[in-house]
């Protein structure tokens, strides 16, 4: 008996030593590793989608760039709205708003750093050749897409920060700290890197045009050429081209000037040629300026049938539909690069500009997707032309109205498509061009929405006005934004909003860019007029050279024949045509007009007043409803986060921050 006990005891004691040395070796083979992505085409898709993942979410209300300009705004009661907060002067270098350099919190999602996107592109470029079940042609195409995206991510940061470091290849993680501390490259090197890289993508394997519907949204040569035109336009613009005024003393820690100090007019030529080339690429691939086709695309609203049948209204209703559906008719002939991943399709984040702009429906049981608070500023509305296609202060036939622009008069038959007949509205809301009515909703105007046609009643306590003082969902300015809201969208539920790809770049912009660059380099020419007229004829207004040379209409007759005059005309045309599309915040900056446009308060009607006269401020014009702040030259560029400057002592902060 005793012996057995010894044996048992002995066995237990020695059990430990039987344990093999492999006891701690527990990691099996086949754990996840990056290389697994590049074995098969199907898994390589995940590497490719990660390259695209970093593209900004333009139609998200919290990421929207129109909000960071003088076009759109939101009342104070809605918490953080990054764009609006920048415009109110809340940008800071400690915690930058909307900057692409670091991960940025956009209230409902994080916009990840563009550097991470660049890293992902480089990973794909380095590894895609290992995938065994892809053809070389396809590998080349994917690689070219990643190359293009890398360039585009650099460009997005270039637009925000100006001179940036160039990360053409990934720095190894075991590199010495000094290698990791990259320098900012001068503007010209950044531009030439971006342009060369786009060229590499175009020549390296991008498809000419993506035609397969399942691949809509992927990059092709038409897209790349269009973006290249945008890059060169930026590079030629006053902010980046010989900006001695702002950046004469802006150097880095090697005493290198980060901005070129000499104006080079040939940059405009490059921009013009690139725009022309991009237009050619697009039109060769059957893209054209969008026009609403009532045969293929029956009119959605019963209320509008009669206008299409009445020759008296046909042109105007056609122009109205042209412009509106150009924006939200999915994948139409003008969409060069549509965002195939709109906010409404993103996982459970429905915070789209469309929902934020949708007017509330008091009779609906639910207004889940109609928030009623992303609204145009008065400044944005005044920029639109008169029905003659002239600025409101230049049109002699509008002079009476303009002189009493805030006076309330009864709406005329001429505006019956857009304003409730015989209602009292300010003169400035009457007799305007179709794009104005297509984009802006105001008191007593019609709004085609929720599948029907409404008359907006916007004063305090009214149907579309602010309901009580504790209402958060109201228009700060009294205006409502129509442009992103599809007439068939139903705000009772996110699923009933019409989804469309936000145009990242569209053909209309290329004509405007071409016109601008041509005028800057050569001065006025028929080619410039033609480019502008392409846009204007779709918008239902007379040709530029026609109205400006008509002494009976234009106050400054023949303004279009001088370079400076035409420049103003082009800029205003661009402001109107691309309004609320997220271009203006960059346009104003590259034209160095921040002080002029971004440093004045937002104006709007007095939405706290139920009485008509109070609402219209006793016909004295809109009141200041929100302060704005813009410091020159500080606010031309984003601040680099202070932490990043601490981590990388080779970086210099942008001036003023």
């Amino acid at each position, binding site marked *: 008996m005793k012996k057995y*006990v010894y044996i*048992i*005891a002995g066995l*237990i*004691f020695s*059990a*430990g030593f039987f344990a093999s040395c492999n*006891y*701690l070796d*527990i*990691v099996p083979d086949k*754990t*996840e590793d990056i290389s697994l992505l590049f074995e098969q085409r199907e*898994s390589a898709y*995940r590497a*490719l*989608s*990660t390259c695209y*993942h970093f593209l900004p979410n333009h139609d998200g209300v919290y990421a929207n760039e129109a909000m960071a300009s003088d076009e759109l705004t939101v009342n104070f009661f809605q918490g953080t709205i990054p764009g609006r907060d920048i415009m*109110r*002067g*809340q*940008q*800071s270098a*400690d915690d930058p708003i909307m900057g692409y350099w*670091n991960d940025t919190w956009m209230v409902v999602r994080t916009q990840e*750093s563009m*550097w*991470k*996107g660049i*890293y992902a592109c480089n990973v794909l470029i380095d590894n895609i050749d290992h995938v065994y079940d892809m053809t070389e042609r396809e590998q080349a195409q994917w690689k070219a897409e990643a190359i293009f995206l890398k360039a585009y991510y650099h460009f997005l940061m270039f637009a925000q920060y100006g001179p940036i*470091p160039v*990360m053409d290849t*990934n720095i190894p*993680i075991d590199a010495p*700290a000094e290698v*990791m501390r*990259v320098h900012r490259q001068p503007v010209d090197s950044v531009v030439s890197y971006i342009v060369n890289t786009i060229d590499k993508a175009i020549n390296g394997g991008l498809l000419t045009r993506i035609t397969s*519907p*399942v*691949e809509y*949204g*992927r990059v092709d040569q038409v897209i790349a050429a269009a973006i290249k035109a945008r890059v060169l336009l930026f590079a030629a613009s006053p902010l980046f081209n010989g900006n001695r005024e702002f950046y004469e003393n802006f150097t880095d820690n090697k005493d290198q000037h980060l901005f070129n100090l000499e104006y080079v007019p040939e940059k405009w030529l490059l921009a013009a040629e690139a725009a022309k080339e991009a237009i050619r690429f697009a039109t060769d691939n059957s893209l054209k300026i969008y026009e609403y086709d009532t045969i293929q695309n029956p009119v959605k609203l019963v209320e509008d049938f009669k206008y299409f049948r009445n020759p008296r209204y046909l042109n105007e209703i056609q122009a109205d539909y042209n412009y509106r559906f150009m924006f939200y008719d999915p994948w139409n002939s003008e969409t060069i690069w549509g965002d*195939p*991943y709109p906010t409404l*399709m993103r996982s459970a984040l429905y915070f789209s500009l469309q929902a934020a702009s949708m007017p509330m429906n008091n009779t609906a049981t639910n*207004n889940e997707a109609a928030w009623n608070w992303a609204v145009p500023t008065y400044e944005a509305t005044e920029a639109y032309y008169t029905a003659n296609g002239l600025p409101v202060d230049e049109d002699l036939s509008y002079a009476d109205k303009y002189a009493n622009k805030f006076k309330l008069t009864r709406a005329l038959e001429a505006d019956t498509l857009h304003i409730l007949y015989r209602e009292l509205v300010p003169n400035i809301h009457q007799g305007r061009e179709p794009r104005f009515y297509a984009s802006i909703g105001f008191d007593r105007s019609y709004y085609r929405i929720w599948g029907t046609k409404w008359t907006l009643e916007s004063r305090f*306590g009214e149907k579309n006005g602010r*309901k009580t*003082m504790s209402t*958060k*969902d109201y228009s700060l300015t009294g205006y409502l934004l129509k442009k992103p809201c599809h007439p068939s969208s139903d705000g009772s539920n996110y699923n009933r909003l019409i989804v469309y790809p936000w145009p990242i770049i569209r053909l209309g912009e290329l004509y405007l860019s071409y016109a601008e660059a041509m005028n800057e380099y050569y001065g006025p020419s028929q080619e410039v007029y033609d480019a502008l007229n392409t846009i204007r004829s779709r918008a239902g207004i007379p040709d530029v050279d026609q109205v400006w040379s008509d002494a009976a209409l234009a106050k400054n007759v023949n303004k279009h024949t001088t370079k400076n005059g035409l420049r103003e005309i082009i800029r205003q045309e661009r402001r109107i045509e691309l309004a609320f599309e997220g271009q203006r915040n960059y346009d104003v900056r590259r034209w160095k007009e921040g002080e002029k446009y971004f440093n004045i308060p937002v104006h709007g009607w007095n939405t706290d007043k139920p009485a008509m006269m109070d609402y219209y401020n006793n016909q004295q014009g809109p009141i200041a409803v929100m302060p704005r*702040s813009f410091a020159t030259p500080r606010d031309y560029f984003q601040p680099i*986060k202070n*932490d*990043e400057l*601490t*981590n*990388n002592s080779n*970086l210099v902060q942008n001036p003023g921050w």
Partner: protein
Amino acid sequence: MWFLPTIFLAQGSLVRGVVVDVEGTPLPGVSVSVKNTTKGSITSIDGKYAITGVNANDTVAFNYVGFDTQEHLVGNQQVLDIIMLESASELEEVTVVAFQKQKKESVIASVSTINPKELKVPQSNLTTALAGKIAGVISYQRSGEPGQDNAEFFIRGVTTFGYGNKPLILIDGLESTTEDLARLEPDNVESFSIMKDATATALYGARGANGVILVTTKVGKRGKMTVSARVETNISTPTKINKFLDGVDYMEMYNTAIRMRHPEYPLYYSKDKIEGTRMGLNPELYPNVDWYHELFKGYVQNYRANVSASGGGDVAQYYLSVSYTNEKGLLKVDPLNNFNNNIDIDRFNVRANIDFNLTKTTKAALKYYALFDRYNGPASDASGIFTSVMNANPVSFPKTYEKPDNFPFVKHTLFGNKGDGRADAVNPYAQMVNGYRDRFNATNQAQFQVEQDLSMITKGLNLRGLVSMNVTSSNQITRRFVPFYYGMIERQTDEGVQHELKLLQEGTESLTNEISNGASSSFYIETAAQYNRTFDKHDVGGLLVFYMREGLNEIAGSNVLSSLPVRNMGLSGRATYGFDKRYYVELNFGYNGSEKFEKDKRWGFFPSAGLGWTVSNENFYGYDLKQVLSLLKFKVTYGLVGNDAIAAASDRFFYLSAVNINDGGKGYTWGEMYNQSYNGYSINRYANNSITWEVAQKANYGVELNFFDKLNVQVDYFTEQRNNIYRAFEFIPASMGLTAGLSNNIGKAFSQGVDVASDFSWSVKKDLWFTARANFTYATNVTLANGEPEYKYAYLSRIGQPINQQWGYVAERLFIDEYDRINSPDQFNKRSAEEGGYMPGDIKYVDVNDDGKIDQNDQVPIGYPTVPEIIYGFGLSSGWKNVDLSFFFQGSARSSFFLDPNKIAPFIGERNALEVITKDYWSYENPDPYAFWPRMATYEVPNNSVPSTWWLQDGSFLRLKSVELGYSLKDNFLRRQGIVSARIYFTGNNLFCLSKFKLWDPEMGNNGLGYPTQRVYNIGFQFTF
């Protein structure tokens, strides 16, 4: 053993009685002797004794190991009941050290032990009893929520800024969780010790760097069965309740606040609404809700019971224990629901320890432990419900609406919400009653042990083997419904303002359920050879231990790497040598492996050594001196201890990269219909095969003193340098494009401190006794190296600062006026903006670097660390005849915390308002630049919510932790019923607290809006049969 009184002896009389300890538990085996005679006896299993032939002038002496000897003159007493006091000097003859026991006199490691009775608290959470009771433990409790009220505790403070800073907890030798320790029944604890220095923890090598808590449970004693029972019930109530404004004051203050920033704005709350509320008109139109009292009860009653039995014969001895606890929360239950949404915990704790003597030299032991925890509670976290009271205001809506006549078919409750919004306001009541959670947690643990005495080979040698298994499972079902929210819609009509109740958010009529189940298990083997022998004056000892442990499913997470087991193995040893009870030497080592590291970096060797010198045993130590200072002992130890918990549990295998190659959050979508979706990938860690152990170099210098055999003092000074702390390189620029940080063993920290334990016991007469204890722990630390960037300003660097140091701005005062504001440095680029900017009455900061603007670079280290540097406690117990009284104070010092203005600033998003804030704030009427609250606002003022000295609070406090009054029944009647002893006692916990911070219980720190810490009034009965 039992001298029957029937045996008559001619001379003298019979003296008999019962010997018990302070708590009335009978003490068997106490030697009872009549001085200067040979007469004597030993107490029986129930503590009784009887001696015959005792004269009136005889003195009877009572002797028991570990207790003070007592002598009593017999006089004419026939019954002499004795309360024995545990001796201060030799609380334990033996001390439990790593893997074995050592004679206390020979221990040179720094080990604190505590009498398990000290751990009895009326809350059923043992971790709450640690603060101030044990020298060397830094502890604090942030929440009073039943089931979630574990205290945080650190041995000798926080000594690393790496991931793992928690001590290793071993219960009966098995690695256990904080939760296991919290649920331990103090009645079952035999010994509780804290291992602090290198020699004490070296044998645990890889796991001992943060100190070790070692608990052993009681085992059976040979003899007749003894049954002990304890029944307690208590009333638990918050130590402090936050006071909020009532509706009328709220609205008036809100209107004031809006006008403070925007004088031109219309009033937010109309006069009509305020007056209606003041007059108490229709509460659906003019709600005035006191959310706190609508949601929570003032107190709650809890129950506890514990029964244990112990005894046995020569072959087997047993200790069996069963306890039951019932704890409830303060949440009210909605009468409209038939389920219980309050916290209601039933807990059963079972322990059976059985020892067998298989042969004369072979012993076996079987230990079984089970914990069953049945939890019922709200669907969402209870602490969150307390917090949400802050986010609802009294006037927006009532908690529910009465069902109006025009809603005849509505069956659901009409929960209130803001009438004009999208039902996005917080209704705490709806949040509380919208469901309930059922959870069943079970822990089952079995341990088998064999011990073989090998004296036949060589004397003093024995072998031991142990196998243990543990399974913990948790099944949780949350059932909840989505509330239907209704609101009063205001309509402007020709007849004036009309109100109409409207559905704002569709809810669900039925409950949904979410099930989450999980189980984890562990397996542990330990074998040890032990040798102990005394040769004349030489005491020699040796120990060699091998162990391995595997834990399955211990790591939360779904990927393959986190699903792999956790494994540890090690070989440890100790050699001790003592000479003549004067000189002691000890050498230890731990050689440990962990699965976490690359093959070459997997094993760590951790040696340590110590020296001890008992001066009071030297020949030159005089007799007179010994009468005063009866013990004087010095000890020094030094060594290395490791830590493999260098990163989060799921962050292992540092030599592999952590990649999610199918990450839904990184994908993109293409296609005409936006449906060609592909997931992406993410890199969460870059591979690095040089990562290895964190290592602590610990040194301890101790002295033990004993004065007059009554006062025992132990003082330790320690230093520790922690090297190889796994730490991120923080200076990696974002332009690298990395999606995860880069880390390595680059951190270093140094800590030092003192811990002092002293106790005193004095038995004045046979009926009157005192014991006192005092503990003091001071631990401070400093960061020596971390991966921080090169800061432009030295004060931004964390090097040279305590590990838990906080940084913030230095608030000078509030801006006095516009002139002051304009002429001060610009703060956060916000001066120019109206909204979101700052105004007179907002906080003015000091431009530390004098660059004309206030930004991140103006933050300096402010205040003390978040973890207190000093924890202390002191208490006194005394007894007179049947009555005993004790109290214990506990304190904490040198800690700071920030009030978080983002959580408590009133009116933001129509948030509730704490009364104290509205009593002292800046206004044009009261432009006090040092008012408690800056200029009011109804939106967040970022200028004021940055961490700054303005919000810094002193976290120190001194509280009366417990008071206990007991009465022991030592009645013959009881004894005839078979009840050996009985005691009734009253306990009060957390009765009062002294602190500079007045808003809430300072121990809660910045968690003051959570579940409040509890004050407990307890009554208990204790019996022994």
